[in-house]
């Protein structure tokens, strides 16, 4: 689309932000932290991580941050992820599958409704990124 109009420049900016927003130090609406200890990795955390990444990309979101951390301590229930909506207590999800990720993303991150069926509990540890 060479030779931009002003509208096209703004559109290009919006598009470009969809992949560069992760470099910014601002506030995010939601943070997803996939636990990637040896236990998590063995249980398939990498697939879970990529499933979350695809959900963000599919929707073109620039306000949801995906990070990783080590083992969360409950190795038998991996893969696990902690989801924290800004201003709310973090929620830990356990025994994740790609299918569950889809549902959690839609309901919790987009809809604000905790998927209690997959949740371990609310509260406790926070991500180290604030």
């Amino acid at each position, binding site marked *: 689309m060479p030779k931009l109009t002003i509208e096209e420049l703004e559109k290009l*900016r919006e598009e*470009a932000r969809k992949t560069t927003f992760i470099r910014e130090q601002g506030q995010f609406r939601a943070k997803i932290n996939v636990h990637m200890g040896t236990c998590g990795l063995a249980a398939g955390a990498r697939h879970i991580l990529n499933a979350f990444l695809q959900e963000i990309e599919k929707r073109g979101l620039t306000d949801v941050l995906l990070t990783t951390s080590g083992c969360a301590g409950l190795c038998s229930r991996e893969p696990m992820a902690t989801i924290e909506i800004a201003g709310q207590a973090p929620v830990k999800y356990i025994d994740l599958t790609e299918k569950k990720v889809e549902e959690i993303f839609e309901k919790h991150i987009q809809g604000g409704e905790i998927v209690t069926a997959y949740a371990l509990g609310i509260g406790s540890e926070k991500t180290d990124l604030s």
Partner: protein
Amino acid sequence: MAVEKEKLYRVHLMVCAGTGCVSNHAFEIKEALEKEIKRRGLEKEVKVVTTGCNGFCERGPLMVVQPGNIFYQMLTVKDIPYLVEEHLLKGRPVKKLMYQPPEEKTPVPVLSEINFFKKQVLVALRNRGLIDPEKIEDYIARDGYKALVKALTQMTPEEIIHEVTISGLRGRGGAGFPTGLKWQLVRNAISPDNEKYLVCNGDEGDPGAFMDRSILEADPHSVIEGMLIGAKAIGATQGFIYVRNEYPLAVKRILIALDQARYYGLLGHDILGTGFDFDIRVVRGAGAFVCGEETALLASIEGRLGEPRPRPPYPAEKGLWGKPTCINNVETWANIPVIIDRGGKWFASIGTATSKGTKVFSIVGKINNTGLVEVPMGITLREIIYDIGGGIPGGKKFKAVQTGGPSGGCIPAELINLPIDYESLTAAGSMMGSGGMVVMDEDTCMVDVARYFLSFTQDESCGKCTPCREGTKAMLDILTRITEGKGTEEDLGLLEELADTIKEASLCGLGKTAPNPVLTTLRYFRDEYIAHIQDKKCPAHVCRSLNVYKIDPQICFEKGHGCDVCRRNCATDAIIGSKGEAHKIDQTKCIKCGVCFDVCHFGAVKVE
């Protein structure tokens, strides 16, 4: 140049690819990272991005992991497999590759927590480390060309000039002329065929200065956008970027940036469909220092010999090919988009009464944290040297700092609490210049420093006017004489007289400022000149012909057991003695090369 749709990655590894890190093998680090990421099957999650200069050059090669702002430093190719496995595969940042401040026990993981970065305020360098300078989309994502849209659609030329005027922005190239006023003069100037030109001065030549280079390398679009806005304000359709050919990376990146801007129609005809036309050409300078002077620079662009001419007429009236021309420095242009975007008032809220905004400095010499910093005007020298610069290496004492390059002067340690702005530096006998800061410790001889800078300007003097050509030569002869112990007391008066004449009578800024290093060292370190002249001694032991080397027989015998290393290394057989006994120097044969001093492991060789 088709644009592919970018994929979303969870991690961006921002590898610094400024000239400093590149010469420390940053591209090899990048290759190693990409190879290891692929080997670990992470290529769909992790992307390596090369950025411009991060600023903390001392600690290169550097890399910042985003999100998280985790700062890694002094990387080697060997570290990469471990780093990728730990941080990217398992999510555990690697402490041993983080920056650990001297005298502290734990490393600082996050960039913004490191002292070097804490006090900096980034305006001109707002995108450093956050964008790939070879990708216009990265610049656009960080509000790039937003100010241009505002200037083209919502502002008249007068309103643009007004905004720049109230911002208080002054020329960042050295003289500090108010930018808004300059633009107004060029706008008002009458051109017979309505043609006016715009020039970006990137002919950075001061020893130890690399502000302009870093901006062109790290964020070329900020300069292009600034020039576009300036073009609308003064009514120009053609601009020039004059950059040294010794800056290959800067030249490469600015050429890529211009191509990309043209591709999107941000340069050329009918920009963004607004009917505004402007384009930019790159002119490469051959490295003559005098071409940084505006009239010499214009002559060079026109293809003539790079020599200055008398002013007036100023370029604002008669510049390139006799047409009104607006010349601003790289850093000045890079500030413009922010001023238009955030408003002149915002910019003016930073800084001091007469010097607004921020200033980029390159800190080099005897300093722990060599690098590029941007700080608010009015910051004290102490904050720059100690808080940001991390002090002097090896526990040595801070002696002076040369600001403004060879045209500036040295500021002594007594003035460490001096708030830095245009006026305070001029009052101290120096000048802001383009922002080079050469830090000197107690081992520096101030007479030798003055001689060095004068030899630089004498060498670079174009020879067109007599005061500069002959005067700097005469001053250099005297200084050389003093450092060789052949100075007389009349020499100091003669130096001052010559300095006054050269300042008064030279044609251009090069000559007018050349005596500054001598005048400031005479003002603050006169006793060192006197020591050289009267006592025939160099207090810092730098001027070798004034040194006398002696061997302490007791140390040589007791500690070194007459190791004989000095004798074997002496080029003139001036050292007497054999293995196992104390050695001695025959002063009639000694040429004072200092090799014995350097090779002695026991500190037995003394300098007087």
